[in-house]
Structures are given as C-alpha cells and as structure tokens.
C-alpha cells in the first residue's frame, strides 16, 4: 500500500489544488439559476432602470445610458460576492470543507479556489453587463487601457467583497441564512451611493457620506474609466478603498479559514 501519498505544502500544491477547487466551484454554480442571475437579471436591470429614469435624467442633461451600466456592474459584484458567501456556507454545511481539512490539501488552496472562481464570475458579469449596456447606448470612450482598467477594478472590487462574504459564510454554515443576511449590507450600500442617482440628489447633510462611501467611489471610478477623459484622481480613490478593504476583509477571511472547523 502507498503510505504518504499526497502532500500539501509548497507553491506547486497551492496552485494545482487551488485550480482543481476553482474548477469545481465554477462547475458547481454553472446552473440554470446562475445563468438567469448573470444574464437575464442584468438585462432587466439595465433596461428597466433606463426605462424608469432615462427620460427624467435626460431632461437634466445626464446621459443615463452612460451613467447606469457601471452601477449595475458594481451591483453585480455584490451579487458575485453574496452568492460566493452562500456557497462557502454550503461547503461547510455539506461537509466538503471538512473533508478538505482532513485531506492533504493546502490551506491556501481553499481560498485560492474561491478567489479564482469568483474572479471568473465577476469578469463574466462585467462583460455581460457592459455588452448589455452597449445595446442601450453605453460606450467605452477612454480607450483600451481604460477599458481593461474598468474590468480589472470591477473584478478587484468583487474579490474584496468576496473575502468578507467568505468569512460570513464559513462562520455561519447556513447558506439560506447567509444569503438573507448579506442582502442587508448590499441593499444599504447600493442605495446609499451614487449608483442610480447623482450625489446631489440626496439631502445636503447626507451628501458627504454618499460621495465618500466606498461603493460610490468605486462606481465613480468605473464611470470615469468608461468616459472620454478617465481621471487618475478618481481611480486612485477607488484603488485606495479596494486596498484598504482588501487588507481588512482579507485578514477577516484568513482568520475564518484558520478557525472554521
């Protein structure tokens, strides 16, 4: 009999096992439900909001077809992260997580598997929504580098959020509860941002909060990257937020991965 087959240390194992887990995560969620969530819903949101608010904002001189899609992208990064949190909870509930713990599987591979699969989902969502926006009149005016930056920022934002939801999912282990719980911060943060209306549409006392919320800052950076004149100052603010939240949520997720049994 083979005795000590399968090892877990080293970069080779981290990458190989992370890739296997990422593939499994992707396959796991490649369901009709997810197709609806990632293709049909963005279509409904883009065209629905345009129909609702398009004329209103056009009258104010705001091109809503250009304004809206970056917000839908940011919104969908939340969806990627929230479904990922529920998937982490499900992995714990069904014992998959536990099995990985007693197998010679690199501890980092579990995290890498999540990061990689959510990066793919986030990329797909960003592309689908941008394409949908294109039908409605949305354009990338800033050139190739800015367009790549747009997608990269969106994916980075999704991964930062995923770190937080992974921690929640692993700690809870109840997929339904996690999905419900994560809707609260998601709705609050999206509502209290410049996602659907400009900051000056909020009451004056609330405006500074709205302007500086990380969600607003990221959405404004995405808008800037899609505009004819991408502004580094806007992008820099978003990068700072993503970096800060990445460190904080990353630490929280690492702690959850270490402690969850």
């Amino acid at each position, binding site marked *: *009999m*083979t*005795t*000590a*087959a*399968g*090892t*877990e*240390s080293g970069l080779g*194992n981290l990458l*190989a*096992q992370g890739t*296997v*887990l990422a593939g*499994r995560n992707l*396959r*796991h969620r490649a*369901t009709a439900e997810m197709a609806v969530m990632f293709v049909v819903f963005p279509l409904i949101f883009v065209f629905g909001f345009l129909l609702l608010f398009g004329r209103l904002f056009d009258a104010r001189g705001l091109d809503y077809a250009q304004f809206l899609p970056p917000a839908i992208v940011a919104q969908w990064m939340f969806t990627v992260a929230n479904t990922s949190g529920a998937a982490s909870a499900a992995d714990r509930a*069904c*014992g*998959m997580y*536990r*099995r*990985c*713990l*007693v*197998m*010679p*599987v690199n501890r980092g591979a579990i995290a890498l598997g999540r990061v990689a699969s959510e990066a793919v989902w986030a990329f797909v969502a960003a592309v689908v929504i941008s394409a949908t926006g294109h039908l409605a009149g949305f354009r990338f005016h800033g050139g190739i580098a800015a367009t790549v930056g747009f997608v990269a920022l969106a994916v980075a934002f999704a991964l930062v959020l995923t770190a937080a939801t992974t921690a929640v999912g692993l700690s809870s282990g109840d997929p339904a509860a996690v999905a419900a719980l994560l809707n609260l911060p998601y709705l609050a943060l999206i509502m209290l941002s410049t996602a659907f209306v400009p900051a000056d549409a909020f009451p004056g006392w609330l405006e500074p909060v709205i302007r500086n919320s990380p969600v607003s800052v990221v959405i404004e950076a995405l808008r800037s990257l899609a505009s004819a004149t991408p502004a580094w100052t806007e992008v820099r603010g978003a990068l700072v937020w993503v970096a800060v939240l990445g460190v904080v949520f990353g630490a929280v997720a690492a702690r959850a991965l270490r402690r969850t*049994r």
Partner: protein
Amino acid sequence: MTQWGIEVEHLRKEFDGTAAVADVSFTVGAGTLLGLLGPNGSGKTTIINCLTTVLSPDGGRAVVDGCDVVRDPAQVRSRIAVTGQFAALDEVLTGRDNLVLFGRLLRLSKGQARERAAELLDRFALGDAADKQVRTYSGGMRRRLDLAASLVVPRRVVFLDEPTTGLDPRSREELWQTIRQLRDDGATILLTSQYLEEVDRLADRVVVIDAGRVIAEGTGDELKERVGGQVCEVTVPGAGREAARDALRAASREVGEHGELLVVPVTHPSQLVEIVRLLDDRGIEIDNVTLRRPSLDEVFFTLTGGAGATPDDRDGASRRGPTPQRDPTPDGVRGAAAGADGRRS
C-alpha cells in the same frame, strides 16, 4: 513501521472550559480494528477530530501511523482516510465526478483519477449510479461513496465516525462487509459507534468511553462478560411483581423494572432456571421469560453504575437505565440494531 497504528495518551480537549475529552488513552495495533463505543456526547467525535488534525488537543499526545498530530499534522493528513458522521460530498456532482475531484486534489493526473474512480465505483457497488448526481443517492449509497472518496489514495489508517448511523439494516450489512474487507487488506481502523452490536461484529478490541473518559476496554466478549453476559427478562403480571422483585433482590440479584418486565443480568443461561425456580417457590405467577444479550444501555448502566452522564447528554442519560430494547428511540436504525441484538422480534 511501528507496532501501533494509533497511539493516544492522556488526550484532553476542552470547549469553553468544559472537557469534552477529559483523559483518554488507548492504542490501536497496526492492521487491527478498534471500536470506540460510547453514547451521544461522550466525546467520540472530538477524539476523531483531534486524531484527524481538525482540532488540536489541549493536552496529552496522539500519534497516527508514527506521526504526531500536533507536531506534524500535514504528515498525518497524508496518511489517513476519514469518513465522518455525515457524508462529505459534493451533492451537485455525480458520484464519479466526486471521486475524480478528490483524486485530482490528491494530485493524481486526470487519467489516474478517472481510472481510480472507476475502480472504486466498482468495488463499492456504485457502478449503476456512477453518473447520477449525488443528491439522488440513498443513504447507504452516500455512505459508500463517502468511504470510497476517503480512499481515493489507499490509506494505512482509516477513521470511521459512526459510519452506519441512519442506515437501514441491509445497507448497514453491506457497509460492514466493506469495512471488514478494508481491515483484511491491512488497514488500521478506528471505528466509533453507539451500537454494541456493531463493534461486537467488527472490532478486534473495544474501548468504551463515557463523559470523555475510558470506562472499559477489552474484546467484545470480555465486555459482555463484565456486564453479565446476558439479560433475563421476566414478565410478572399484577401484584406479584413487587414480591418477585424483592425475592430476586433478596437473592442478591440486580433487578431493573420496566412496566411489567423485570430485567435481571445473568452470567450464565442456567441462571434462568434458578430465577424461574426461585419465583415458582414463592408462588409468583410468571407470564413469560426470555433471555437476551444486554443492550448498550445496559452495558453503560453496568459500567458507569448509572452515573457519569454529561450535563449536555440528557438523551444518553435517559437511555442509560436498564430498560429493554422496546423503548421508542427517534433513530430507526438504533431500534433495528437493538432488535437484532435482543433477539426479540
């Protein structure tokens, strides 16, 4: 290679100041099967979790296949197969894909993983359902696939935590067959169970734990010897029962009562005759007399003296009296196992 597959010395694990495992020591000889017998909440799963590196012990030492679980957890993980109380599988994937996934995680090539999956599906009689989603599997199929998944790479030490809980008698028998096969192939196996019958049928040696401590150790026969070998049940209708109980106690026998039944541990079948004669001499009318093997409840009652239940183990505590098998339990399997054990039905 050492003589021991598993060595546990003064293992201790606390949760929030309460010792789930207070002080447990035992060894499992290489290539043998040890049954860890205990009620719910006695610490069985915590011991398994410490030995499989899921939890780190608060005290003592544990060595698995020569590797210390605290100092060298990665080495331990690369030597063990673990099947937990609940199947740990990907419900969305097919049985085959689950096995391929775990093979790939263990760094087998795609081809090797597929080949090994096919082999295991065949060996564990899952060939027909190989390409169906696991969520459609029955309880028995799930358990077999779970065990197969833990053996994608052959392992020298196998942990089975209550492997047959929730299975119908036929699935249970099939799984037992598989476990015997594993041991015959030379694996060291640590199996936990709540069923005396199960460890009796499978284990070379048995360690009985209660409230996080070892309360008895030996072969199945030795343990049954200690608890009186067999149990005599006497059905006495009406008023004669008290007289019968007092008469038996006067003859220095332990007597448990359950409705119309008096339950008397005996060390030899011939004592049945003595009991009947004793009651007959006093003119006490008897409806029925049966002899059966003691249930786990009775084993625990005898070994613990009815004490030692953990505070969080109300279920175990209430079961611990010398009651016959017919007490309603929520777990159908337990009833089935007891039925076979008690030879009543």
